[in-house]
């Protein structure tokens, strides 16, 4: 049997539904006349599991899992990793430093742009964004440990 995309997607939803249902043990279902905090989530999880099963059963119409195009995965992984590091540093380094580093790293690591071009662009862009958001629109941008 060929493994198809809906087999994987359906199985993922079933697994997710079962896992969250297991985590919902402490939520009271209540009675129909007095529904508890757990009633709606538990009903939704059951619905999700049922639809997950339906997806698996009707998977023959979906394309084979092996045919899903993943050529963009390196790009996606790099972007997630770099943005994740930026999010971690954001409250410590503040807006100006974090955003300059974020844009610079994306341009040099992901896009392989010349370092000087990337540096000029990232500094210029961050300063413009800082002025527009922080000064013109008066949005309170995060200040880092260096005070800016």
């Amino acid at each position, binding site marked *: 049997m060929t493994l198809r*995309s809906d087999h*994987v*997607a359906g199985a993922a939803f079933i697994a997710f539904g079962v896992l*969250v249902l297991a*985590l*919902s043990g402490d*939520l*009271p279902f209540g*009675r*129909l*006349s*007095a*529904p*508890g*905090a*757990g*009633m*709606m*989530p538990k009903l*939704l*999880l059951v*619905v*999700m599991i049922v*639809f997950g099963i*339906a*997806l698996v059963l*009707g998977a023959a119409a*979906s394309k084979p899992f092996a045919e*899903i*195009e*993943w*050529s*963009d995965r390196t*790009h*996606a992984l790099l*972007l*997630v990793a770099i*943005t*994740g590091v*930026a*999010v971690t540093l*954001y*409250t410590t380094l503040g*807006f100006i430093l974090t*955003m300059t580093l*974020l*844009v610079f790293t*994306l341009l040099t690591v992901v*896009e392989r*742009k010349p370092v000087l071009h990337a540096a000029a662009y*990232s500094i210029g*862009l*961050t300063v413009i*964004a800082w002025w527009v*958001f922080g000064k013109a*629109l*008066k*949005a*309170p*941008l995060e200040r880092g440990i260096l005070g800016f």
Partner: protein
Amino acid sequence: MGVTLDSLWLGFSVALQPAVLWYAFIGCLVGTLVGVLPGIGPLAGISILLPITFGLNATNAIVMLAGIYYGSQYGGSTTSILLRIPGEASSVMTCIDGNAMARKGRAGAALCIAAVGSFIAGTFGVIMLALVAPPLATLALKFGPPEYTALLTLGLVFLAYMSTSSLVRTLLMAALGLLLGMIGIDPLSGHFRYSFDIPELGDGIGIVPVAVGLFGLGEILSTPSRQVTAEVIRPKLRELWPNREEWRQSGWPIARGTVMGFLIGIIPGSAHIISSFLSYAVEKKISKHPEEFGKGAVAGVAGPESANNAASTGAFVPMLALGIPTGPVTAVLMAALMIHGVPPGPTLVNDHPQVFWGFIASMYVGNLMLLLLNLPLVGLFVNLLRIPYAYLYPLIIMFCVIGVYEVAHSIVDVWIMLIMGVVGYALKKFNFDPAPLVLGLVIAPIFEMSLRQSLIMSDGNWLIFLQRPIALTLMVVCAGLLAASAVSAITARRDWRAKLAEETKETKETKETKETKETKE
């Protein structure tokens, strides 16, 4: 009618104030840019710019954000026609014949027809909004919890029925969205649900991080810069005016697209996207020369462009009159109104007439601005399209982070955005539409509250939804739609939705083939 005219007069007295005009202009300009630039749609654009409106009053905020929404429908056509890449999802159909017209040297005419069609559709939509929303709001005052439950159920069923992907996939996404909406403190019992001792999750998951993650970051993750080429056709200003034959061919498609778009816009779902696909299908079906479609048919530009603009205006009817979002964009706009202490819904017309009518009047003005903005400034937008995508997306990621963080100054929200970006990427790979997820997230609190209140009212009797006339009517419509879906699924009959899905698939495949070819070259 007299009352409506008086109210419109009040609206124009608000909309023509310099500050409101300024924010309408900013909204239209930003909306056009959002529509023009690939990789950022109206939802991400509105969500990112939402924090900027915190310092404005409710009227200025909603006027600006709505301007971004309908402005993006105008802007999306520019990229579709000149670049054959839809700047916005609803512009996919315009790519086909708009770009074919451009390759025949009629880029200016295609842009002009798209702009004029959008203007007519937008203006018609606003007139209808002014006429339909107030009486609907009066009717909605009679709604109690069972009616709201039935209405929201109908919304979800309609969304699933109208979806070009399968009923199961749409409802799965909606269920996931509803489930995400359950996170946080239960308003009736005070229980913490799925907050895992993270205090920020106590208030639940916000719509902005989810929307920006799914539609902004998710799109960027799946679009490596090498796949975005910039082969832009630059029209000359003197070529903008269509010839007599082109005007003649665009008249009826604009009229049909306008009416169809408005009616579809009222229905929940990604109406502006569905309406453009349906309009294209209808025009092709009734055309005396269907073979011209795909090779630069004027009707293939005029119809879909009018339809998506009318639909984006129609979507405001349930939002303003009932307080129910028909899609993720209206959901964010509702959130914006609520942040400003103006709850959308039946009481909006009476409690905040200046906001309601000022907003409607500003849309008349906004449509005129867009017409004046889009045609003369087309050269500027063409130059924007020449910015390499490799330099553009870091800017968009920066805006995503700022936009999400500034809503509540919560780094947890930014993490949620990042996670949702990955989820959006995965959903795209497995052919799931994330729009129902966002809609589910937004309606979750209203849906749960009204369902539980209905059950408490009836002492646990589900028949309450069949004992009240309005709720019964809505439930009968639900049952009818589900039966229609079931019949077509059991008999494997290809109805209009299946044909529409095929058209969508064909268009996407053509675009992907072109991108792959260009990448290889």
